[in-house]
């Protein structure tokens, strides 16, 4: 039957094209996760640190900013801590080093202080008492790490714990893109 043959050929052409699309689509193989915020200006964030200093994301323009949503009882947050300490140490030795902030998610100031006293990490910890920062970024699950570029645009979202060298590599890629 002619129709069958023509149909088979046409289907073959269309499906070959579709398979081609699947082959070229690189997918989500990289560490970055999707978010409608990517490439958009970061939400305006004003809060205080657990040491009662004010923080305004708008004033941080000109530097790379890294937010790490954190809770001292969450196992993966604890697991990634040593990698983060290394990352922050490496950044602080650069002239254009990124500023690192822990955003405290549903946890008390004292618990956070105890955790950092025990495990190290001398960077500002931001309060997010009513969860507004987490909501603004769409964070449902800690840890999450976000990178915001010197122009104040959201560039990367990483879900879950980061391993050694992941943040360094991602930020290096972003710095290349920025130039």
């Amino acid at each position, binding site marked *: 039957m002619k129709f*069958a*043959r023509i149909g088979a*050929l046409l289907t073959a052409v269309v499906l070959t094209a579709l398979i081609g699309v*699947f082959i070229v689509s690189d997918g*989500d193989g990289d560490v970055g996760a999707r978010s409608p915020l990517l490439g958009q200006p970061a939400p305006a964030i004003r809060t205080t640190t657990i040491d009662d200093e004010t923080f305004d994301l708008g004033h941080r323009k000109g530097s790379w900013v890294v937010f790490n949503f954190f809770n001292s*009882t969450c196992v*993966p947050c604890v697991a990634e801590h040593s990698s983060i300490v290394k990352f922050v140490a490496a950044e602080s030795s650069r002239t254009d080093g990124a500023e690192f902030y822990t955003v405290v998610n*549903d946890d008390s100031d004292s618990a956070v202080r105890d955790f950092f006293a025990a495990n190290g990490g001398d960077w500002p910890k931001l309060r997010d008492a009513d969860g507004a920062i987490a909501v603004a970024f769409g964070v449902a*699950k*800690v840890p999450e790490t976000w990178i915001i570029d010197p122009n104040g645009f959201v560039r990367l979202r990483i879900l879950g714990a980061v391993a050694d060298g992941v943040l360094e590599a991602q930020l290096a890629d972003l710095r290349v893109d920025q130039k």
Partner: protein
Amino acid sequence: MLVASATAQLGRAILLAGFVAAFFGAFAAAVGARRNDEKTLRFVPRFVVITTAMAVAAFAVMEWAMITRDFSLDYVQKVGSRGTPALYNVAAVWSALEGSILMWVLVLAGYVAATAWWMRRRMQEPLVAWALAVMFAVLAFFFLISYGPANPFGAGQPGITDGPGPNPLLQNHVLVMFHPPILYLGYVGMTVPFAFAVAALITGKVEDGWLHLTRRWTVVAWGFLTLGIALGGWWSYEVLGWSGVWAWDPVENASLLPWITGTAYIHSVMVQERRGLLRVWNVSLLIATFSLTILGTFLTRSGVLNSVHAFSESDIGPWLLTMFAVVVAVSLALIFWRGDQLRADARVETIYSREGAFLVNNVLFAVFAFVVLLGTVFPLIVEALQNRQLVVGEPFFDQLTIPIGLTMLFIMAVAPVLPWRKDGRGTLSQRLLVPAAFAVVCLAVALLVGAGGSKPLLAFALGGFAAGSALRHLARAIRVQRLRGFVGRANGGMIVHVGVILVCVALAASNSFTRSQEIDLVVGRKVSFAGHTFELIDVIEQRDARSQSVRALVSLDGGRPYAPAITKFTRVGTNVGTPSVRTTFTHDIYLTLEPPVRQDSGQARIKVFIKPMILWLWVGTFVMAIGTVLAVLPTRRKSEFDEDPIHRLRDEAIDA
């Protein structure tokens, strides 16, 4: 180098043995069929026994490792935990990629064994042998990816004595025990009719005998798929806390696509059995159904699409894509080759006949499947061509699928009263009298309870119209056949229709008339919304080894308290909301607790959804399941479609 434990080595050896047995099974069946060699074909059952034993053994070893918390395995480290309750721990085996592929292997091996047992006396026939060869080939492929890129028996990091446990969303409701296995029974079951279709093309036995062989298998697999999809919707409703059952998520679409083409096949196959028409189309639908299960698995398990279900990245993408390409290429080549023999002797004379209505039904299903497929892969196409990301959301699917759904309801009303072969326009108005009365009553009731809006009202009226038609058929069948009027393809099918209509009407009502509001509650103060009062009694906290949860006790209309909760799974760092629902015949009251919430604060913010007719969604699914069972029960006749004049007269009496 990680040292593999005895369990890991045992598991891998079993998978390898399974692969080898399936490969040689396919080889023996194909060679035996080609040479028509009985001696070779006698080996086939032995390979069936070995593959089944290996699949069962591999799954059992995995379950044993999970139950005994054998943290020497990477997979157990990923999804196991000492704190997971026993029930969820058993289900943890299929809570991530590697385990779910293992379950695929188990279910497919079961289908191979069932097919071989059912055909044990006809193993020598080339059609049957080729079908088994195809099934063995598919099974070998799944054994291979389970042994290779998706191996659940990989050795884990040494020194780990506890893990995070399965995804918290998968340890929150008993449905995780049932939804994946039942869905897989449907998904994988589509391999059986596919194998027979390919075998028919290879042997050139494209007459209609193979259809009779596989019809029940298709209907049973379709029934499981229906039930699996519905259980997924129920799980979403009970666990996810957004009060919806369907989000057009890629994984949901991946299960819907084979369901659509399978449904189309179940209808169009009747045209072939009765009239010998649509042969190429039917073969194509079976091939499409099977390839879509592979494509769906590729889309959702390879990481190319983002989804709540996309477990994790893995390397099985290229394997599944290759499998998809091979299946499609081989099938199309076969159709191309056998196209001439598939020519039908007759044609559809008039569109106003039963076969004409089935034709329209199939065009609609094809468009439906195309829309869903396009919406699912469109982001990938755009990304490939323009290198930007885009999301195809609910509005796209709703706009395109609602008109299709409404048209289908209309066809569901008209098709059952149309006669085969003849132009039925003359008798249409008389036969549609009862259904039309149903439509008017449904519309009147809807208007009476205050429903508005053209689309939902149209859905209710057409739902009544279609239900009237189905019930008219059933009433007549019962009058002629007594209790047997519930049994058999046509009668069971009409019961399935009633279920489908209930689901459609419930979806139309709940999607169109849901009311929701966030309410701030303070202990001791009543708040009213939508005719109900809500009063906060207390906010309590519960802790156990793996989680801490806060629940608000809310008294509804002064009655017993409902307790929406937020649970923090500390090992994973996730907050999971658990809704609390009061179900009545007319509507559900669905409560979720909104963060942040503190114990002893005496206040809580809840979100209330008033959702009409949700119960009927589950009732409709249940009716569909019952109808499916009744449709596959044997009837007294040898074949339902023999042209025995007495039965034909009876059919016409029921239709008239």
